[in-house]
């Protein structure tokens, strides 16, 4: 059921207009005004999204066609938007959490000289992100896909005077491009494979109707290529390396882009193309495995980080791994549900850490914090709530969404015990590193150096109000999707219109799910306890652990960056350098110049006969005349 809904286009266009106004006229306005303009734009966009959400009929789709974008028969892509249940949820996350983070930024970035630029980028991001979820075809989705990458690049390097920031930005963009390489090839392969079946389209609804025509092996290849794109955007193994570095950006950016929205684009894309992915069991297996491995792997790294934001960054990678695990076992609805809840608690965590950093005047090393609970009470309480949620404390959002994933990983036809085991261990690690962080930052003795300590203060209301709202959201958002043995899920039916009915889990006895829940709670509690023992009290154990080899490995992130540097970056640049400095000037241009200099050398020896003596020329002239006469005579 398609319905024209002309308001859709305003969801992306209003933030775009906000960004354009700020870019074009921002220099002449007061910086504060730029912030209000940006917030206003996102607020309007949020209102329209709410309207869409409210008005969207069950299993209905809103459409809004603008114009034909590219037409090169048989290829045709329209600039048109569509909103179904999945999109509506994503829109709420993007504009809703986006609005909170915009407001938060008013406080956080209040005294930054680049505020106009900051808000322009942020609005631009909302534009691209909503474009991504509203797109009704793959190519337009790709516009949003790369567009958010651009904003991420710009915002990571927002404080451009520091090289580490801009290098991190470049890394993010380039690693994403590598993923997009796969994505783009996937689009091309899908287009021509569909075309071979007589269906020339990239439109989602048309693709869904024709998906069954594809040959199984090409579906597998197509979906694998798409997933390659997702590993870049959503920071999965092997392309996750950019996300921890991306924390160089302003903290609200980390919250919005690198936790709540952009990095989940890969999950969204997988869900959007669920009809293709579910046709490719091999791909699903790959996704599930990579998701579970990433979740576990990133969590182990997170336990040994000392930078407050890096812990959260690896935590994000880990949680994204959960989402892909869910998608990989075919539980797309669970994946989106976790995306939704994760957006709340991870945004809350990041904004909380931002509040801490703000209070400390830019300090990010947790070893130089401690005991901040007294100085930042609101931040502390919201942080505590979010940490509980992410660790899966009962009846919070994280509890419901994570348990759904664990249950599906175990019980779904695509699931397995191994996957569940990895996810289960990750749950324990999550609780451990989150509370390790909480204890290091907020409890214990205050290790803040003196001048900064005197200025410690709670953040302004513009920052605390979003924190509180997000903390509340983290608790209650999960109640939309409780297991069947409680009041059941309103979430799954809502998304069923898009994602289709989930295959019933064979062993549907609630006992199994309850048992797994208990196990998960147990390991999370264990993690909490361990964190408390090691970091919650004044003890020397932590220092001894920090000296172990394994800890050093973890702290250096298994040296993955160094390995990539040695295996890919260095050989490649060495090769490029050889081409640029030796091969091109020496061989190719050398050949060209060699031809020239050979001719030149020949000419140099021949030019000697031009003696300059006019009588020599005359003699030559005479000789020529003689020869001509001789020829005439001899004829």
């Amino acid at each position, binding site marked *: 059921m398609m319905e024209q809904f002309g308001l859709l286009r305003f969801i992306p266009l209003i933030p775009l207009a906000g960004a354009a106004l700020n870019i074009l006229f921002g220099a002449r306005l007061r910086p504060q005004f730029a912030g209000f303009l940006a917030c206003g734009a996102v607020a309007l966009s949020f209102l329209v999204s709410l309207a869409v959400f409210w008005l969207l009929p069950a299993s209905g789709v809103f459409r809004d066609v603008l114009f034909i974008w590219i037409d090169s028969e048989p290829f045709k892509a329209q600039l048109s938007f569509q909103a179904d249940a999945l999109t509506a949820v994503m829109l709420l996350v993007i504009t809703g959490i986006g609005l909170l983070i915009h407001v938060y930024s008013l406080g956080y970035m209040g005294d930054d000289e680049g505020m106009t630029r900051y808000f322009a980028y942020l609005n631009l991001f909302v534009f691209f992100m909503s474009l991504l979820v509203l797109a009704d075809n793959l190519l337009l989705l790709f516009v949003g896909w790369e567009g958010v990458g651009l904003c991420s690049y710009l915002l990571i390097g927002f404080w451009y005077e520091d090289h580490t920031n801009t290098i991190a930005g470049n890394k993010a963009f380039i690693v994403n491009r590598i993923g997009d390489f796969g994505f783009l090839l996937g689009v091309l392969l899908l287009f021509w494979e569909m075309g071979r079946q007589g269906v020339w389209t990239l439109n989602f609804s048309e693709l869904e109707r024709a998906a069954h025509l594809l040959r199984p092996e090409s579906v597998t290849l197509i979906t694998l290529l798409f997933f390659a794109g997702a590993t870049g955007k959503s920071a999965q193994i092997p392309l996750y390396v950019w996300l921890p570095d991306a924390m160089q950006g302003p903290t609200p950016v980390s919250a919005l882009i690198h936790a709540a929205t952009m990095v989940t684009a890969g999950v969204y894309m997988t869900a959007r193309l669920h009809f293709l992915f579910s046709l490719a069991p091999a791909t699903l297996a790959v996704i599930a495995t990579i998701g579970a491995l990433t979740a576990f792997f990133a969590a182990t790294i997170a336990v040994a980080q000392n930078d407050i934001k890096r812990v959260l960054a690896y935590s994000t990678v880990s949680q994204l791994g959960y989402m892909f695990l869910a998608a990989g076992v075919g539980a797309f609805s669970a994946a989106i549900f976790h995306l939704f809840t994760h957006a709340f608690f991870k945004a809350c965590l990041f904004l909380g850490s931002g509040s801490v950093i703000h209070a400390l005047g830019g300090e990010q090393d947790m070893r130089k914090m401690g005991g901040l609970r007294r100085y930042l009470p609101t931040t502390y309480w919201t942080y505590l709530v979010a940490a509980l949620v992410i660790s899966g404390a009962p009846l919070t959002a994280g509890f419901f969404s994570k348990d759904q994933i664990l249950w599906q990983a175990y019980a779904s036809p695509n699931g397995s015990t191994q996957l569940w085991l990895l996810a289960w261990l990750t749950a324990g690690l999550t609780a451990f590193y989150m509370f390790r962080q909480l204890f290091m930052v907020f409890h214990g003795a205050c290790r803040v150096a003196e001048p900064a300590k005197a200025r410690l203060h709670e953040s302004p209301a513009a920052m605390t109000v979003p924190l509180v709202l997000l903390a509340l959201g983290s608790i209650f958002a999960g109640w939309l999707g409780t297991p069947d043995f409680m009041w059941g899920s309103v979430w799954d039916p809502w998304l069923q219109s898009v994602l289709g009915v989930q295959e019933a889990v064979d062993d549907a006895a609630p006992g199994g799910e309850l048992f797994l829940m208990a196990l998960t709670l147990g390991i999370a509690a264990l993690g909490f306890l361990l964190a408390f023992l090691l970091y919650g009290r004044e003890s020397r154990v932590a220092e001894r652990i920090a000296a172990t080899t394994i800890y050093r490995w973890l702290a250096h992130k298994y040296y993955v960056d160094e390995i990539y540097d040695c295996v890919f970056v260095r050989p490649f640049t060495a090769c490029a350098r050889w081409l640029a400095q030796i091969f091109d000037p020496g061989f190719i241009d050398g050949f060209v110049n060699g031809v020239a200099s050979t001719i030149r050398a020949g000419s140099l020896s021949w*030019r000697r006969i031009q*003696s*300059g*003596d006019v*009588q020599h020329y005359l*003699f030559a002239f005479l000789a020529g005349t003689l020869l001509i006469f001789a020829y005439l005579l001899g004829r």
Partner: protein
Amino acid sequence: MAPLNYYLVLSAIIFAIGVAGVVIRRNFIVILLSIELMLNAVNLTFIAFARYLGSMEGQVIVFFVMTVAAAEAVVGLAIIISIFRHRRSLDPREMQLLKW
């Protein structure tokens, strides 16, 4: 009356002598003189043909050749003077700027 060929051979001899002078002598003035010699040889040919063909055109041409020769001599001598002023020499081997 001498046959035409006699005149032609005579003019060829004078012409060849002029050519030899132009090629051999290393003195601009002698070269110029030799050129006059060659011109005269040609003039003789023209006049001989004019007589044997009974046509005035040959003589008219000779008239023009004389005009041109006068102009050539004047300009040539002026150039020689100019060169001599700069170089203090009349040897063509000294004027080799136009080589290579």
